[in-house]
């Protein structure tokens, strides 16, 4: 029985994809995530948490939370992910399982505004200082606009779309 079957037996597995021989991608639900991570850590040997990541699927109104684990003995990575509601991004911390989750979650809280219940330091500033806008890594945050308004530009670029300019120029010739 391989790991996908074992996981399917115990948890709700929405998608299981073998990306490479050492990379497995599993999608589960919000409810099933922490038990699955616990199971993977304690029984399957995926003892290391490499990364927690968040992706903003703004069209679907979802945040995708991904947890990348590493199994030292099997030499394999597993990505466990689930979709989180973008409007109410509340989730629980996995800090009790892995200490480094604290810092990762702190960053995601800062950059996406996801709330991790039980994380002791998530409200402290990690990277930004005195941030005054929506969490910047969200897709609806326009960084160019923000930068131009806040920091300005030496000589406003004409930013002409040369392609458009060219075709308009030739249109003019036609009118002649």
């Amino acid at each position, binding site marked *: 029985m391989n790991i996908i079957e074992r996981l399917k037996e115990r948890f709700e597995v929405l998608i299981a994809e073998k990306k490479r021989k050492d990379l497995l991608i599993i999608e589960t639900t919000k409810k099933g995530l922490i038990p699955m991570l616990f199971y993977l850590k304690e029984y399957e040997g995926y003892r290391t948490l490499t990364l927690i990541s968040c*992706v903003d699927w703004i069209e679907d109104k979802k945040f995708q939370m991904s947890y*990348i684990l590493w199994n030292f003995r099997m030499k394999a990575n597993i990505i466990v992910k689930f979709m989180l509601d973008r409007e109410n991004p509340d989730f629980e911390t996995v800090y009790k399982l892995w200490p480094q989750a604290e810092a990762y979650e702190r960053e995601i809280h800062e950059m996406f505004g996801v709330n991790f219940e039980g994380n002791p330091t998530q409200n402290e500033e990690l990277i930004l200082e005195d941030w005054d806008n929506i969490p910047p890594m969200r897709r609806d945050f326009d960084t160019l606009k923000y930068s131009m308004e806040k920091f300005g530009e030496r000589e406003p670029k004409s930013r002409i779309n040369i392609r458009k300019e060219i075709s308009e120029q030739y249109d003019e010739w036609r009118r002649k």
Partner: protein
Amino acid sequence: MSTEEVRLFIGPQHPGVTGNMSIEVLLKGDTITWAKTHIGYLHRAFEKLMERRIFIKSFPLVCRICVPESDTNEENLARGLEELADIEIPERAKWIRTLVLELSRLQMFIMWYGGIAGSMGLSTPVQWGIGDRDYILDLFEELTGGRVYHIYILPGGVRKDLPEGFEERVLKTMDLIERRLPEYDELIMDNAVEQKRLKGLAPIPKEWVEEMGITGPVARACGFPYDVRKNSPYEAYDKLDFDVITEDGCDVWSMLLVRRREIDLSIKLIREIVSKMPKGEFLTRLPNVLYWEIPKGETYVKSEATRGEFGYYIFTDGSGKPRRVHVKGPSFIHGITLLERLLVGQNIADVAPILVALQICPPEMER
């Protein structure tokens, strides 16, 4: 001895920290009782900027993520995109990439080797380390056209072929560095002060390694044979003959030993790569880069930087721009989770060597 606790900020403007970061510590006498890492001084929002740039435009960006070792970033992103877009690269490109990566690791290790001595006030090896590293930068300049930021590894292969006679010059530089290494050893390894201060400094409990996700030379100094080049070989590493270097001391001295042996290994690998370098094409033709679109997908690629496992978690959504690229620098865990715990109980004077030993590179923590 005073029993009052003193709050001390080390950095960001401090010659002892390894870059633009700062550590806040509570001191009881000379001993640190609590530590906290502050980062964000170099946050340029690479991940955000990549989301609004087409794929090819990300390459000049990513090499800035870790300044001294830029090639790892380019290689990771290129490999990730190749995997998602299903592009095969020529054999020679793989070998050239491996050569560039190894050269890059070597120059970083040499600089580090001088740096660990400098962190304890021994400034001669600093001069040597940076001076000798420059010979490798000369090679990079010749090969890629840039000293620090190479933008050499692109999806599909590498940008230019090796110049005429480049291999010989690489070997010559390797000879030069190998000749110089015993002098470094005399000054650092055989130095009573260094030995006294570093042996047994900042021991890392072995169970932390897996639990915290410690990687690279730090993990190897704790006896874990964890090396991405061996565990999940990429580029041409599976065709190279080498063993993972481990030490068992768990302390800064072991980290020093691991890295010292890594220098030898790198030189050996570079020689091997040069001797095995295949002939042929070095770049496959990409689709038109201005309109290049990659189907929806996600992947995690990683490689071994000098500091540990460097990973790229890449999302594409079928458009010409990445949906999200999450860069996992090894320093994130080393610099925050590990450092905050490791510093507790240490002497304030040892902060600099510990920082250098963990080889914390702030820009990759905050991107």
